[in-house]
């Protein structure tokens, strides 16, 4: 029953998308000044049907209807409610349906918000967006239908991978999708803008909030993913430059570049085409990332059941997207007159884009190089953190300085570099950094310079806001405040990541129950092991006591080894004592055929401050979004 209704909603959604395209093409030719109400009604209908299909699948999960293959494969009656809900997007089919829902939601919101704007531009955007929607719906229906039935009806489901049963991971995909897929709307709008010869400035004003929204969600999605990796994967890290992490970072670089250059386009012409290219690339890269992950070319936790036809479909779809974008770009791109002043605000924003492109290209090369190498020469290489750190970290230093200097300049008129502006703060930040370096006895040169640069960025922004507040009689202007908050957030992020990377401590111990091991600054005791039976798993809990010899402070940690029943899996749950300044992180695993347990003890400083910095970055974006004078 649910399956039939689900299929019906999918078919109805496909039909409405199809009619939306047809009617829009017809209306392009008439002389009315606005799109008709009929189109608006159809787009509401489309939203309703698509949401219904999602809710139908959700219902299937909630009542554990195992006649639906998708529910059978990914759910279980004993699963907690939250994970029944998140199970909907914890698999390929369901997450694709979520993906389409976001496409439709953005299409609807964009269309109804800008209903009275330039008609040709509106209709073309709607057409392009609905071609995307239709493309993904056909993909869903043909290769990945979540409403497929299974017979005979199984009495119990297979369950969800336990490492995906986590609150952070429940909200990670929706957040990332709002970012990834949110970028579709300015992809469509950029193509529409080229064809309708829309004014660059108007295009910037219309697409800015959408860029901001997708950027905010993308940042949050990446943050939540990192937090999940830190808590759940049990190695105490939060970013591994894993190909899948990279494919969420690549669109982020593009969105960040776009966010900055759109601010220029709002004020003056000259980079319209560049903004269009960035808009097109962002969504293209989002789909490319999805292709790499879903096709199984990249192997990771994110890879769901592999199916070559799916990979092939996305590849064809992606190629069609890229080639038609290139065609439209060359056919319709206008001639631009570019003239900028050196050291003006727009100059620095272009430099920002230069760096963002560099980061993006490096990450892209690092992600796809091993794939190409293996295909061409069948040699396997790994590209991990050392590669990215070696190439990217040095470039962060000039970026941080430019981020500090850029916002202090004026639009158009600034022409000279002002040494006086930077010298005092630079002096102050070197003093501060030197003190920190001496305190923690830190000797890595690159890290030291990174610390100086990030402290400088933070100082410059805080002082800048203070001055701006005084000038504007007690209230800073919102755009300035927003960018300062985000930039301070980024400075803090680099500052804490750098400190964290050099002050983290890790020890590996093999230890029996009741035994004590002495380290340089800590005594670690495994007091005892207890066994508990939970609803859908059995767990071994280790009672570990950590004594800090310097402060005589005692911490008790309880890492777990869990044995899940459905599906049968062993997971290791880290135990984390989290403070503002430092985390104690312990994982435990059994060593086969022995009574010893392997205990990994780590001190991870500033983890909470790393998360906090990222939230600051997002807050700046949110402030910019809600302020009237954007």
């Amino acid at each position: 029953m649910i399956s039939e209704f689900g299929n019906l909603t999918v078919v109805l959604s496909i039909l409405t998308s199809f009619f939306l395209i047809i009617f829009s093409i017809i209306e392009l030719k008439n002389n009315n000044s606005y799109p008709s109400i009929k189109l608006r009604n159809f787009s509401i209908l489309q939203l309703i049907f698509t949401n219904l299909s999602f809710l139908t699948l959700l219902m299937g999960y909630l009542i554990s209807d195992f006649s639906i293959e998708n529910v059978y494969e990914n759910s279980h009656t004993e699963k907690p409610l939250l994970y029944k809900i998140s199970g909907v997007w914890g698999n390929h089919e369901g997450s694709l349906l979520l993906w389409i829902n976001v496409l439709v939601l953005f299409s609807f919101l964009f269309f109804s918000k800008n209903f009275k704007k330039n008609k040709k531009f509106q209709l073309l955007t709607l057409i392009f967006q609905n071609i995307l929607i239709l493309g993904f719906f056909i993909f869903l229906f043909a290769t990945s239908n979540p409403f497929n039935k299974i017979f005979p009806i199984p009495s119990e489901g297979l369950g969800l991978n336990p490492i995906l049963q986590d609150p952070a991971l429940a909200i990670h995909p929706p957040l990332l999708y709002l970012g990834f897929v949110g970028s579709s709307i300015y992809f469509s709008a950029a193509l529409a803008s080229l064809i309708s010869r829309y004014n660059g400035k108007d295009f910037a004003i219309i697409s800015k909030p959408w860029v901001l929204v997708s950027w905010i969600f993308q940042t949050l999605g990446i943050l939540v993913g990192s937090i999940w990796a830190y808590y759940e994967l049990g190695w105490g890290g939060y970013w591994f430059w894993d190909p899948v992490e990279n494919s969420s970072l690549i669109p982020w670089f593009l969105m960040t570049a776009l966010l900055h250059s759109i601010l220029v386009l709002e004020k003056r012409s000259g980079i319209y085409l560049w903004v269009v290219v960035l808009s097109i690339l962002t969504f293209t890269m989002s789909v490319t990332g999805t292709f790499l992950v879903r096709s199984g070319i990249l192997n990771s936790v994110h890879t769901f059941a592999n199916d070559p036809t799916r990979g092939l479909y996305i590849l064809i779809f992606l190629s069609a997207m890229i080639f038609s974008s290139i065609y439209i770009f060359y056919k319709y791109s206008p001639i631009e007159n570019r003239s900028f002043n050196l050291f003006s605000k727009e100059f620095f924003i272009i430099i920002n884009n230069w760096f963002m492109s560099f980061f993006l290209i490096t990450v892209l090369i690092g992600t796809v190089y091993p794939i190409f190498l293996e295909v061409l020469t069948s040699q396997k290489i790994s590209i991990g953190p050392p590669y990215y750190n070696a190439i990217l970290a040095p470039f962060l230093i000039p970026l941080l300085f430019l981020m500090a200097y850029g916002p202090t300049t004026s639009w158009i008129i600034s022409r000279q570099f002002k040494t006086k502006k930077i010298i005092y703060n630079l002096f102050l930040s070197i003093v501060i950094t030197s003190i920190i370096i001496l305190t923690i006895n830190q000797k890595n040169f690159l890290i030291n310079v990174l610390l100086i640069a990030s402290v400088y960025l933070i100082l410059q922004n805080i002082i800048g806001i203070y001055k701006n507040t005084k000038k504007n009689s007690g209230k800073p202007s919102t755009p300035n405040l927003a960018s300062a908050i985000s930039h301070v957030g980024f400075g803090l992020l680099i500052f804490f990541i750098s400190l964290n990377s050099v002050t983290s401590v890790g020890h590996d111990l093999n230890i029996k129950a009741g035994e004590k091991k002495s380290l340089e600054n800590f005594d670690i005791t495994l007091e005892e092991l207890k066994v508990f039976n939970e609803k859908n798993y059995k767990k071994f809990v280790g009672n570990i006591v950590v004594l800090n010899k310097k402060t005589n402070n005692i911490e008790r940690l309880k890492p777990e080894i869990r044995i899940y029943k459905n599906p049968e899996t062993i997971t290791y749950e880290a135990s984390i004592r989290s403070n503002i300044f430092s985390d104690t992180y312990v994982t435990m695993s059994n060593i086969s055929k022995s009574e010893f347990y392997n205990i990994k003890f780590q001190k991870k400083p500033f983890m909470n401050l790393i998360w906090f910095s990222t939230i600051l970055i997002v807050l700046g974006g949110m402030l910019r979004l809600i302020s009237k004078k954007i």
Partner: protein
Amino acid sequence: MNKIKVFITILLAFNIYFSDLLSEEKINNQIYKNLRCIVCQGQSIADSNSDFAQTIKSVVNDKLSEGMNEKEVYHFLSEKYGDWILFDPPVKKKTYLLWSLPYIFFVIGGIAILFIFKKVLKHKKY
């Protein structure tokens, strides 16, 4: 102003002076982090609980105590398990492009920006 510039130079020199290679106690952990646990999924030797990781750790410790340096340990392991085990891909014929392409693109970007600003640089005096 000049005094401050002198101060900055001194402090920077001080920072550089105090910068040093990694201390020896950290070298084992450093090496573990740069090795892939080839039986796991995207984990390093340092992060993995597997038997394979335990074996590699003791191999690394043995080789270090035999007097090998970090590079020699990597070389030894890559001879045995292939470059797949190294997270830091060594510069070889097959990785020339990998290591150079990012910089090449950076330079191309720089030239493109110069091109945009060429007009300004030519016609106006600063």
